[in-house]
């Protein structure tokens, strides 16, 4: 297990922890005092959750570029391109 893999694991762990915390607080707030603040927390929580695996792929790409492992860097970049198309499609609609 390399330091790089530990970093990837930690990124996923921290991302999902932040997202769940935001969703939990947002949910409680939405029930206690519904309003824009609660909604904002929930929306950010959902976006952080969706962004967590994307951040992992981004870090993977950066690491393979740093290692000059071009084949895997290209693969990671390919996944990022697909994610980019998804976000662009979502943005457009």
């Amino acid at each position, binding site marked *: 297990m390399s330091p790089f*893999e530990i970093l990837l694991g930690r990124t996923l762990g921290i991302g*999902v922890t932040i*997202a*769940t915390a935001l969703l939990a607080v*947002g*949910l409680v707030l939405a029930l206690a005092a519904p309003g824009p603040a609660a909604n904002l927390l929930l929306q950010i929580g959902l976006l952080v959750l969706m962004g967590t695996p994307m951040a992992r792929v981004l870090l993977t790409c950066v690491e393979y570029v740093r290692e000059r492992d071009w084949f895997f860097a290209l693969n*990671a970049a390919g996944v990022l391109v697909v994610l980019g198309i998804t976000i662009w499609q979502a943005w457009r609609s």
Partner: protein
Amino acid sequence: MTLIAIAGVMALGALGGMVGALLGLGGGVFLVPALTLVYGLPFREAAGIGLMTVIATSSVVSAQRVGDGTVNFRLGIVLEIATTLGGLAGGLTAQALSPRTLHLAFGVVALFIAGVMFRQISRRAVTPQGDPDAGWLGGEFYSDEHRRRLTYRVRRLPLALVVSFIAGNVSGLLGIGGGILKVPALNAWCGVPLRVAATTSSLMIGVTAAASAPLYYSAGDIPPLYAAASVLGVMVGTRGGFWIAERARARSLKVLLGMVLVFVAVMMLVRA
């Protein structure tokens, strides 16, 4: 009223997560039909919520499993091209299909998954016997059978890519993880040890779901309150499921839950 509805969704999430963890399915396969059949949510909203729970489970499980050293990150990133393309295609298709077609598709896929599950129960996993050379995608794993670390090679990569694309497509279309479709194929056909296939798959389903979730999000198909309740429920349920899985005899439980899945599939087909 809202409180009861939220608590109910959270309970469904916990149940789905628990059952998913017991079967190695991820929460979506049970949560999505529960949300449509029990709660009457539109299918696409149930699928959107399912995707969010898939991302959460994948991240939590991967963060824990990285320490084992069984996740094959290089194989993962190669197959993720196929799964994310499949996810994107599935997400776009889901926006165009009628709820009836989606219910139908879910029923058929759930029946197929139940079939794969029953086959897995009666069949032993393929343990690679050790290769002199890991190749460019292979790696090492600890074999319980040989009681030492063995090297494995990844075979038939094009086949693995095709299976990954299909699994990604199903994930984006129906809001489930799709791991159950990849893991047996990677193990039986591509020479990947079962544990490596399972952990690498649980890593991949997160980014796969993230390749279609934004489409659901922007279409307004991820209701924030229900999604939050489901994610929180699934997080608790998954932990509970792993706890039970370590202590209970899994076999009869799997058969029972497999039959529940068949029942769910039939309900979805009837609904369609």
